[in-house]
């Protein structure tokens, strides 16, 4: 049979190609499924920060257990090991050595670093004021500890500098290392070289930390524990969790569906053949996504179940309904039922097609995957599967089940009235909850467990590490321009700090002032002859003799002629890492990042920050509230998903109108589906759920799967009892597949499952109850 051979050959070649693509595709499970493909300028900053920004690269390690001294030793050996590891750009544990180097750097460069250095502060009056201030400090009990610095730093520049750098709350120290607020854990702050979105590199870095810790703990025979947190840890854990759940749930639902089919068919051959369209669809779907997007999102694979749900239906229709022809050939099915299945398949394709243009890669991939998968499964069922059926192929006769169901699912006026009431009740529920129907938080989709989020917040708070939430970004054409922009923005932020709008901020310019500012500060320093003269006048009546301040005059003279500070001078200090993290190359230019800290009172009033920056910072200063803007972005996607789904629905209606050529018939197909969607939404809301993006996708799937049922009822068939039986079986398979998803711990999978499983069931029920004529009567 040449047409048979041709069909099988085409199928085998395509399946082989698809398998090749699937094997070679790149898979990812990072945040990027939730980030836009073609961002606007401000979205670009947001996405860049979320994917590659400094906050995305920070990991915090917390050493617990054992005693404080052991934890401090472990912190030191872990830091030493990780500094030798190339994966980390910075390893900070608050060690005394780094603190000493920090102090030495600040002292050596105090006159170009201190914001207090101005021409006025080095005139007679300015000198006198600052020296009097220093003497007052010295006079207070305990102030004597500053006495040795008196002759080098009588103007108290180190103190001014400490005040300027103390913009952020420093972490607690004990035993020479950073510790948590309660002191029970030693803390290390690590910055990876790789971006936070590079999950593979993050996984390697995390592995390196764990290995180094295990070695250190073994060497010290310490029973200590290691906790890690940070975006990289979340990404790695999320990927592992999604991978695990996808495999586990797909296996479980596959097993359940196979058991169901085995019970129904009582034929091993049928069971094997039922998998052919499913496997073909899944292969085609993944291959198509790989071809179109380059990268396959892990979440997309998670929706593999959606395909099992729909694709298995096609073979069920074929196998069960093939009994129509007593001879057992499939030709009759192709003529009698295939047009209905084809229409159902096309409605599904229309629904999914609406998602494909979405700017949200997660949605676009899901749409494309489902579209190609359903199409492939349908075509394989029609053109390949019949050729594979053995000559005397027949599954168990399911007519008795259909007949029994038909007696229950009898359409009646009472049922219609009941459904109308259900519809009204659902609308009423949705209307009364309209204010809080939607969950607009991106976190709603986050697979990171609450406990892990709390741990992260606690450790970040203890370290004063950037919360990564509020950020000023200064874009500039050059490194120097970015630093100057950061200085201007810093002046505005200082004002806000004094008024309590901010709790603190960080800036690269605090440690590495722009060359222009360094030059201005150096020019403010008088030459030795002038300084001596001014000091003599400033010290009149004060208990200090000018001769004893010779070291001060020398230090100022050195600072006047010293070369400007560069990044290289920061080597070995903790400021190097800060500057590298806060001053980053961005395309052709540079970005200076100024992470903001909340005041004790509550959140930052960003409108005041924007207003202050607009006045004083001419450079491109953008204030980002990463969390809110990410939520806003998600809100856009949510809106887009609703719009896309409605567009999909409209496409389906147009398709049905074009095929059925009767608005009344179209209404009869659409009504039970709309009713199912309404009822499920209302039930979810009543159960306390706030609807997310995935619930919307679930509703689209209810329509896509349910349209098959509604079409069969609307079109009527030669064998209504058998048709009903096949629909019941197909429905049970769908409900099982999605029902398993509802128990997932990954929110996106759970939301989808809890929508589609009950929705599909209701779609069948409503379609049966609203059918034009009782199927049983037509059969008799």
């Amino acid at each position, binding site marked *: 049979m040449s047409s048979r051979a041709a069909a099988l050959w085409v199928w085998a070649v395509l399946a082989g190609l698809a398998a090749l693509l699937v094997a070679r595709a790149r898979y990812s499970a990072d945040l990027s499924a939730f980030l836009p493909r073609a961002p606007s300028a401000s979205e670009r900053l947001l996405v860049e920060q979320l994917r590659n920004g400094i906050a995305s690269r920070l990991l915090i390690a917390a050493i617990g257990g054992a005693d404080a001294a052991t934890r401090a030793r472990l912190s030191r050996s872990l830091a030493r090991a990780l500094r030798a590891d190339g994966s980390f750009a910075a390893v900070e544990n608050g060690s005394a050595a780094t603190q000493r180097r920090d102090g030495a750097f600040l002292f050596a460069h105090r006159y170009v670093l201190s914001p207090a250095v101005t021409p006025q502060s080095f005139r007679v009056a300015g000198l006198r004021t600052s020296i009097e201030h220093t003497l007052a400090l010295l*006079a207070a*009990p305990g*102030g004597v*500890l500053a006495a040795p610095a008196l002759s080098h730093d009588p103007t108290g520049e180190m103190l001014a500098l400490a005040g300027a750098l*103390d913009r952020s709350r420093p972490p*607690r120290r004990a035993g020479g290392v950073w510790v948590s607020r309660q002191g029970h854990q030693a803390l290390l702050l690590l910055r990876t070289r790789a971006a936070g979105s590079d999950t593979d590199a993050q996984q390697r870095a995390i592995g390196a930390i764990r290995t180094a810790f295990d070695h250190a703990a073994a060497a010290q025979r310490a029973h200590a524990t290691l906790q890690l947190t940070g975006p990289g840890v979340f990404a790695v854990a999320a990927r592992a969790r999604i991978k695990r759940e996808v495999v586990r749930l797909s296996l479980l639902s596959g097993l359940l569906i196979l058991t169901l089919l085995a019970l129904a068919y009582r034929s091993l051959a049928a069971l094997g053949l039922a998998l052919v369209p499913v496997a073909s669809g899944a292969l085609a779907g993944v291959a198509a996504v790989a071809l179109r997007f380059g990268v396959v999102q892990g979440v997309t694979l998670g929706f593999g179940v959606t395909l099992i749900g729909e694709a298995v239906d096609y073979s069920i229709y074929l196998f069960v309904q093939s009994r129509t022809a007593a001879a057992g050939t499939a030709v009759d099915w192709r003529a009698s039922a295939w047009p209905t299945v084809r229409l159902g398949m096309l409605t599904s394709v229309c629904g999914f097609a609406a998602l494909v243009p979405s700017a949200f890669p997660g949605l676009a991939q899901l749409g494309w995957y489902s579209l190609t998968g359903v199409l492939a499964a349908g075509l394989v069922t029609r053109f390949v599967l019949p050729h594979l059926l053995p000559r005397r192929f027949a599954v168990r006769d399911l007519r008795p089940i259909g007949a029994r169901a038909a007696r229950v699912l009898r359409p009646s006026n009472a049922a219609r009235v009941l459904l109308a009431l259900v519809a009204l009740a659902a609308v009423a529920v949705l209307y009364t909850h309209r204010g809080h129907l939607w969950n607009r938080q991106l976190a709603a989709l986050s697979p990171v467990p609450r406990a892990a989020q709390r741990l992260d917040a606690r450790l970040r708070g203890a370290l004063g590490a950037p919360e990564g939430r509020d950020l000023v970004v200064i874009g500039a054409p050059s490194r120097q321009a970015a630093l100057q922009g950061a200085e201007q923005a810093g002046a505005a932020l200082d004002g806000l700090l004094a008024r309590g709008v901010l709790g603190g901020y960080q800036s690269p310019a605090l440690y590495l002032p722009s060359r222009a500012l360094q030059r201005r500060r150096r020019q403010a320093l008088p030459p030795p002859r002038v300084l001596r003269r001014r000091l003599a006048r400033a010290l009149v009546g004060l*208990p200090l003799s000018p001769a004893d301040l010779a070291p001060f005059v020398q230090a100022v003279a050195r600072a006047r002629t010293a070369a400007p500070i560069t990044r290289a001078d920061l080597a070995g200090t903790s400021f190097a890492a800060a500057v590298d993290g806060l001053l980053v190359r961005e395309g052709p230019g540079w970005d200076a990042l100024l992470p903001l800290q909340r005041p004790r009172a509550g959140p930052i009033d960003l409108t005041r920050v924007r207003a202050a920056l607009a006045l004083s910072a001419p450079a491109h200063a953008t204030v980002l509230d990463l969390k809110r803007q990410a939520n806003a972005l998600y809100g856009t996607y949510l809106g887009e998903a609703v719009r896309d789904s409605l567009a999909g629905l409209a496409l389906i209606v147009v398709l049905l109108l074009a095929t059925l050529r009767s608005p009344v018939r179209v209404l009869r197909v659409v009504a039970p589906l709309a009713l199912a969607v309404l009822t499920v939404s209302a039930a979810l809301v009543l159960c306390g759920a706030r609807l997310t993006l995935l619930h919307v996708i679930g509703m689209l799937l209810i329509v896509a799967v349910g349209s098959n049922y509604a079409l069969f009822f609307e079109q009527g068939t030669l064998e209504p009892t058998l048709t009903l039986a096949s629909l019941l079986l197909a429905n049970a398979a769908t409900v099982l597949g999605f029902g398993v998803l509802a128990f997932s711990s990954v929110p996106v999978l759970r939301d989808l499952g809890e929508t589609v499983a009950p929705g599909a069931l209701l779609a069948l029920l409503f379609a049966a109850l609203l059918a034009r004529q009782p199927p049983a009567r037509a059969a008799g």
Partner: protein
Amino acid sequence: MTSGPSRKAAALVALLALGLTGAAARAGADTPFARLMALLAARERGEVTFVARTYAAGLTRPLESSGVLRYRAPDHLEQRTLKPAPSDLILDGERLTVRRDGHTRHVDLRNYPDIAVYVDALRDTLAGRGAALERRFTVRWRGTLDHWQLTLTPIRAGASVRRIRLAGEAADIRTLEIFAPHGARTVMRLGPPPAA
């Protein structure tokens, strides 16, 4: 191993009063130092005025400041300097509040080991925590309980406090001297509380 410093103090006082030194002897409780500590520990609160003179290289005459020291068992210490410029150091547990020039800063004492040496010496002495003092300092005792001098030298190397010397009569501390490197030092004379 103890249940609150005040109860421990009360127990020590009781032991001393009864002359039952057997149990305490293991900890060397019968030395004059231990007896001084017990006396100090028995006080729940205290308030004294201070006049401090600071001597340092480069100063043609000592700097003078004065104010009030307040202590409340077990962990609260206030140093309110009134002259020449008002400034407050308030310590609660490990939390240090610094008020100066109209600015208030909260810092964790453990992040400032140099200040911590001075503050711990003062606070542990006032609280009569002899064991805590001996953990951090080499303690040298001179004189009698009626007329004593205590020299505390930090055990940790590299501290900018070279040593602290306290002198007093029984439970009244009369002077406190802080020695910094290069000959700099502060001498604090403590007097009766201000007439409020």
